[in-house]
């Protein structure tokens, strides 16, 4: 088992090394074989491991094995080991499984890109890093994986490294992720300073004092917020859409951004020690869910809508974890991986078919041309909107139910607020998803008939938007006639179909207690009991209320979207005068504020220090000292007349003085 799990880690790494060193000289088939093979074999091994694990009893499912000795200092030493338990197994399956589908899809999406080898090398590297993150058995190697997925994300966002916008986005993503790494490092240092251990086993069994536990958990959550794009560290994720679309699907929707959710679940014993930290997790999750959903309402770039939607859905997961239902968070993580990957890949298919167009205003009426993409996209949209019986319904329902349960159990009014936020967000989600769906597929194609007025408005917006995204997107856009739009090749549609199927049935791994099957909850019973044991129970009646309301909100959202956009998307220029619309459209001006408050002052400080402190004070100071010596020597050197007899006279004079001195002294 150990060896097998090690290979899950090593194979993608090997794929990366081979592709990275020799991919440049390889033919396309060889690149695909290695890229797919590495990820596919990893998935296969993970699956074999999973089946093995199922055949053992629940108590024996956690397997921690030391692989090698990393370092020692004094009497202290650190080892690298792999921890394979149901939680990491679930993550492994998602990462390698969804990863494999996206590897396959990428072969079609990136077919014409000369950097294909580089792309697959990075993808394999990402899989390796993510697997490392998931199977690490100490906080140290969690941190290593945490940093490496950040690197993979950076490399892939900046994949088209000559685009200014992509580079800026990559840099932003990396730096914000480093803030998260900082939080994680501080948490690790604090854990070590308090407990003297870094491996999960000892640390999670350790009881920290109240304040320390809160500090550790909050620091961990800083890391989670950065990696999983929660307030206030979410800014990088929308910009990360500069990367190729499969990357957005894999890293910035299905897997890497869920690392934070995984981390909270993994360290749940710590979070259980701090109710403050859990309340923060739940609160931030809820606020982020609503906040991001509100921005998603008005975005025009289809990938950005999905990006904000991802942030919002991640907020849901944290909400669940904040009310002790870690298993619920993981459940939503799994279903979200299915339908969000599906939606992103669908968006990728559309962008591919339209020759790089990402602006919703130039789409429409594609239902007739892109049938497979359309149907699968619809399934994804229904799933994320929480329509029964698709995957999203079950997991979202579970989350809302446990929030309500926590509210009733604790009687705290804020949890009711959180629950209402959840319901409202569900409605918003349905609305923006179907705004997107109708915008793309309903009505008539607007790509050819974009009027001059709209074009001007859009150019202005591109300037306003300050993100260069639209501008960069348009550089590569080729306007395609409606009749020339073709369905994507099989290599791209197959993953769509598989993910669509998963989005339909994926929800059934959750609990069916609501429908009279209290014994049926495969995922929850597979996961360690600590991940759901602390969650409050909800009476069946209240559960029905929660379910009904969220379903109602979803249907309402879809209905409203139909009302506004059912006949196709119309961009209303009069909205530009509406300050509220402008506020939301500009994403609450967070980027601008951040620039003004943080980035500009720091850079100004650096320039000022270089010029004045380094230049004038330190350099000037040392020059000043040298000037003092220079000046005094200019005076003293006059004594050196160059006439030898002057010196001789000086010597004589000196001798006389000495002689006289000794003569007087006697």
């Amino acid at each position, binding site marked *: 088992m150990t060896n097998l799990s090690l290979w899950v880690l090593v194979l993608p790494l090997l794929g990366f090394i081979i592709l990275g060193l020799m991919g440049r000289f390889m033919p396309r088939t060889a690149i695909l074989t290695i890229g797919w093979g590495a990820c596919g074999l990893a998935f296969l091994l993970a699956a074999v491991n999973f089946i093995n694990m199922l055949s053992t009893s629940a108590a024996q499912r956690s397997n921690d094995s030391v692989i090698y000795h990393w370092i020692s200092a004094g009497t202290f030493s650190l080892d690298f080991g792999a921890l394979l338990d149901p939680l990491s197994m679930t993550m492994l399956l998602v990462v390698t499984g969804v990863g494999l589908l996206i590897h396959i899809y990428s072969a079609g999406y990136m077919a014409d890109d000369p950097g294909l080898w580089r792309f697959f090398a990075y993808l394999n590297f990402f899989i390796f890093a993510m697997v490392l993150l998931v199977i690490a058995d100490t906080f140290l190697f969690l941190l290593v994986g945490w940093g490496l997925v950040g690197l993979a994300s950076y490399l892939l966002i900046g994949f088209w490294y000559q685009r200014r916008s992509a580079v800026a986005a990559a840099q932003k993503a990396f730096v914000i992720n480093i803030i998260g790494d900082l939080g994680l490092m501080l948490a690790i240092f604090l854990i070590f300073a308090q407990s003297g251990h870094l491996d999960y086993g000892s640390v999670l069994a350790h009881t920290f004092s109240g304040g320390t536990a809160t500090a550790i958990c909050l620091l961990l959550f800083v890391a989670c917020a950065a990696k999983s794009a929660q307030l206030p560290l979410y800014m990088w994720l929308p910009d990360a859409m500069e990367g190729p679309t499969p990357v957005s699907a894999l890293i910035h929707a299905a897997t890497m951004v869920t690392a934070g959710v995984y981390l909270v679940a993994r360290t749940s014993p710590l979070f259980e020690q701090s109710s403050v930290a859990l309340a923060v997790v739940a609160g931030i999750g809820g606020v982020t869910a609503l906040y991001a959903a509100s921005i998603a309402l008005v975005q025009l770039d289809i990938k950005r809508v999905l990006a904000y939607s991802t942030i919002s859905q991640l907020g849901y997961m944290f909400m669940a974890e904040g009310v002790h239902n870690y298993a619920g968070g993981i459940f939503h993580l799994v279903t979200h991986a299915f339908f969000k990957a599906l939606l992103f890949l669908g968006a990728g298919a559309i962008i591919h078919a339209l020759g790089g167009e990402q602006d919703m205003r130039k789409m429409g009426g594609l239902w007739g041309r892109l049938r497979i993409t359309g149907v699968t996209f619809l399934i994804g949209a229904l799933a994320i909107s929480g329509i029964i019986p698709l995957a999203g319904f079950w997991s979202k329902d579970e989350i809302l139910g446990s929030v309500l349960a926590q509210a009733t159990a604790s009687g705290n009014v804020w949890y009711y607020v959180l629950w209402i936020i959840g319901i409202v967000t569900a409605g918003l989600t349905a609305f923006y998803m179907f705004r997107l769906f109708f915008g793309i597929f309903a009505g008539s194609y607007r790509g050819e008939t974009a009027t001059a007025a709209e074009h001007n408005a859009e150019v202005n917006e591109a300037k306003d938007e300050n993100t260069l995204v639209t501008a960069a997107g348009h550089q590569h856009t080729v306007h395609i006639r409606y009749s020339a739009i073709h369905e994507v090749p099989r290599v791209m549609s197959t993953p769509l179909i598989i993910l669509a199927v998963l989005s339909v049935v994926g929800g059934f791994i959750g609990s069916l207690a609501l429908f009279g099957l209290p014994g049926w909850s495969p995922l929850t019973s597979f996961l360690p009991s600590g991940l759901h044991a602390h969650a409050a129970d909800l009476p069946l009646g209240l559960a029905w209320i929660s379910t009904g309301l969220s379903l109602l909100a979803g249907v309402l959202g879809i209905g409203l979207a139909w009302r506004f956009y059912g006949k196709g998307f119309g961009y209303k220029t009069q909205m530009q005068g509406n300050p509220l619309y402008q506020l939301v459209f500009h994403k609450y001006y967070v980027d601008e504020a951040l620039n003004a408050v943080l980035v500009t002052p720091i850079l100004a400080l650096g320039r000022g220090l270089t010029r004045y402190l380094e230049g004038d004070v330190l350099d000037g100071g040392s020059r000043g000292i040298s000037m003092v010596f220079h000046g005094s020597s200019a005076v003293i050197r006059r004594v*050196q*007349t*160059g006439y*030898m*007899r002057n010196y*001789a006279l000086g010597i004589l004079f000196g001798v006389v003085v000495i002689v006289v001195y000794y003569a007087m002294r006697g």
Partner: protein
Amino acid sequence: MPLTAYLIVSAVIFTIGVIGVLIRRNPLIIFMSIELMLNAVNLSFVALSHFLDSVDGQMFVFLVLTVAAAEVVVGLALIVSIFRTRHNIDVDEMNVLRG
């Protein structure tokens, strides 16, 4: 003869040497004056050695003689090479190193 006589002679010769160094501009003469000073010291060394009945003074004389010889060698070599480059050995003209 009393010791004082030797010492007076020595002092006179030494003073002649000092004045020679101070007032002459030809380095050769200056060298001679320096030799005079050294030998004045030698004279007093020998006289005192005899007077005190100790060989230490005579030993120093040998040391001084050796140093003087070495000094003349170096000095003359310098003068020759200066003369070759500047065709003039007036010490007042040698003031390149003035401050």
